[in-house]
């Protein structure tokens, strides 16, 4: 391992960094026969970069040579940049040496397409195979190359913990505009293949305990946000569809960073749309863990997420008649819909109210954040005005601009009726 490797590392890490996925979770691979490594099902971060992202895996490209010319990609064929290629041994050595020092959870390997998809995929599979041959049981995430043969995808799944195929652009016409060599079919087919294999493998492992695993941490994909005029409804509908039909573990959203600003097909952005990316992740969470349907989060009337407030608050303000809910009686699913109350808080409320009826102080003590929630709940002795009295605009104003609660409506509603009023 010499200076040459160091130079390659710089080039091929720089080329890989725009892939946002870095999860090491979902796999439960034990350390076989006193070898090296295992995987933690909950995932472990080992460091954090200055952009606030977690480093869990060593993220590398096997090569940044590429026959494709996708407009959004830093490694596109027509870019004049330093190019390099790792050998199989170099990647395996780096991974193992970093792993032994507890720098990483494993390897994330992607690649530019050289010669043809099969040739590229075959080399990636060889890296994974080499690592497993050295009795390395840490995490491996392989990027599947669209268009590679099913035999190679199958082999990849035998060695890797997770496979992924990136869609990048949410609608097909826009994908074709920016990446003329790609289409939805070439991406969705491998996804379908991987899904079927995973289901098959689960069935097999139920029957034969020692059947080899196939991509135990499932598969994921990535969508680039803001490179095309696709709205949030397009993006989330596609994501929701993928979760349902392809059993994806994760869809990653990556705010577009203009790497090829000379290309006039791309928008000129001042800065990456980080806020929008964040809102999309929140919406994604609502869909996966909070029992929301995509249609409740974005629809034809609201095709884009509100950037000022989170999607759950936005949903609540659009549907004020569903609130306030009684924290001591409401079901788990209903409590989850209260803005500001997460899965953990909701579970804690359910447990704690078995012992006694909860008041506002109990809620605070068990760690429920009431800043937003208090306008949407009632509980024992909560005298704060709720969304009913303040109206959605009122709550929005208080939360966003720190306006004082306007109680004009509140007061008139509760005015004592006059017995002798004549009207």
């Amino acid at each position, binding site marked *: 391992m010499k200076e040459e490797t160091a130079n390659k*590392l710089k080039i091929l*890490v720089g080329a890989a960094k725009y892939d946002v996925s870095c999860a090491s979770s979902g796999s439960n691979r034990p350390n076989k026969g006193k070898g090296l490594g295992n995987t933690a099902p909950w995932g472990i971060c080992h460091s954090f970069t*200055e952009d606030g992202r977690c480093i869990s895996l060593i993220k590398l490209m096997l090569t940044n040579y590429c026959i494709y010319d996708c407009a959004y990609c830093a490694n596109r064929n027509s870019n004049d940049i330093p190019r390099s290629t790792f050998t199989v041994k170099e990647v395996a050595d780096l991974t193992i040496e*970093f792993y032994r*020092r507890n720098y990483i959870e494993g390897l994330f390997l992607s690649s530019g397409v050289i010669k043809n998809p099969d040739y590229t995929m075959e080399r990636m599979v060889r890296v994974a195979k080499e690592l497993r041959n050295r009795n390395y049981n840490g995490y491996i995430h392989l990027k599947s190359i669209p268009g590679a043969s099913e035999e190679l995808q199958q082999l990849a799944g035998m060695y890797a913990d997770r496979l992924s195929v990136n869609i990048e652009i949410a609608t097909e016409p826009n994908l074709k505009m920016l990446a003329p060599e790609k289409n939805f079919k070439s991406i969705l087919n491998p996804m379908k293949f991987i899904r079927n294999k995973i289901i098959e493998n689960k069935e097999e492992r139920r029957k034969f305990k020692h059947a080899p695993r196939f991509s135990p941490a499932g598969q994921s994909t990535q969508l680039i946000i803001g490179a095309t005029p696709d709205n949030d409804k397009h993006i989330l509908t596609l994501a929701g569809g993928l979760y349902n039909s392809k059993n994806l573990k994760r869809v990653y959203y990556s705010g577009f960073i203009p790497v090829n600003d000379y290309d006039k097909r791309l928008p000129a952005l001042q800065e990456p749309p980080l806020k929008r990316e964040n809102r999309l992740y929140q919406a994604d969470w609502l869909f996966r863990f909070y029992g929301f349907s995509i249609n409740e989060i974005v629809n034809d009337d609201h095709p884009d997420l509100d950037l000022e407030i989170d999607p759950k608050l936005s949903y609540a303000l659009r549907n004020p008649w569903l609130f306030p809910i009684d924290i001591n009686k409401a079901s788990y699913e209903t409590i989850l819909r209260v803005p500001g109350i997460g899965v953990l808080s909701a579970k804690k409320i359910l447990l704690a109210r078995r012992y006694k009826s909860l008041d506002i102080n109990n809620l605070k003590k*068990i760690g429920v954040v009431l800043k937003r929630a208090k306008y949407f709940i009632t509980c024992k002795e909560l005298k704060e005005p709720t969304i009913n009295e303040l109206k959605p605009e009122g709550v929005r104003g208080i939360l966003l601009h720190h306006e004082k609660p306007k109680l004009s409506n509140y007061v008139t509603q509760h005015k004592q009726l006059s017995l002798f009023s004549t009207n």
Partner: protein
Amino acid sequence: MNIFIYDQTFEGLLTTIYEAIELKVRPDKIVSAKSFQDDLFAIKNYVTTDHAKFESIWNQVNKKTTQQVCQRIFQAFLSEGPDIEMLIYNYIKLIIDTPYNIEVNFSDNFVLKLTNIQKKVGRETQRVIMFVRFQKTIDDIYYASFDPKYNVIPLTISHFRNRFADQKWVIFDTRRKYGYYYDLNEVREVTIGNQKVNNNSGKVENDILHVSEKLFQKLWKSYYDTINIKERKNLKVHMQFLPKRFWKFLPEKDFKNKMVLS
């Protein structure tokens, strides 16, 4: 005032609680012999650790609640916080006196407090697992120092033993001056103060470092700098996830370790 004095071990503390319950005395204070300052007017009870008494109380707790609660109590003990002994006494008393399982009654102060302390200990344990950095030495031992806020190294041992089963390693707690050594067969507690390790930064001195060690530290630092996306800079989140107190152990945060490239 009733003061119980024990030997600072977990078994000792549970023996103390057993005796307090047996004597039907409510302790005002439980302190370790090490931190005990004599008090003229107090009634002093010196407790001798007794394994049978420990087991008796431990089994009662286990029967009344779950395995998780036992873990929670033990981990809270490792926080070494002030008055943790009294909190554990109150918590165990509550478990024994209540006919039902109080494990998740978060509206009770003792339950909430103990759960929160355990959570902090759990988080610190996780951070050891995340941020420990091994340095390879000439005799092929992977060495790491750490300075955890709580006494959590014991909680990480099974993780490291499972993961790094084919390499010898040492994890040393610089604050409490003890550590663990895995020799490919078993893990042993070690207390040797090695002059070849800088006690502050945890760095192994150059003459006993493996020839390849500096290279991999540099490669890792280079990786760390390259994977960062400058356009997305977010130092607030960065600092929140990677507090400064860990930096001295992280080669990627070591500014003297700059990559020199031709």
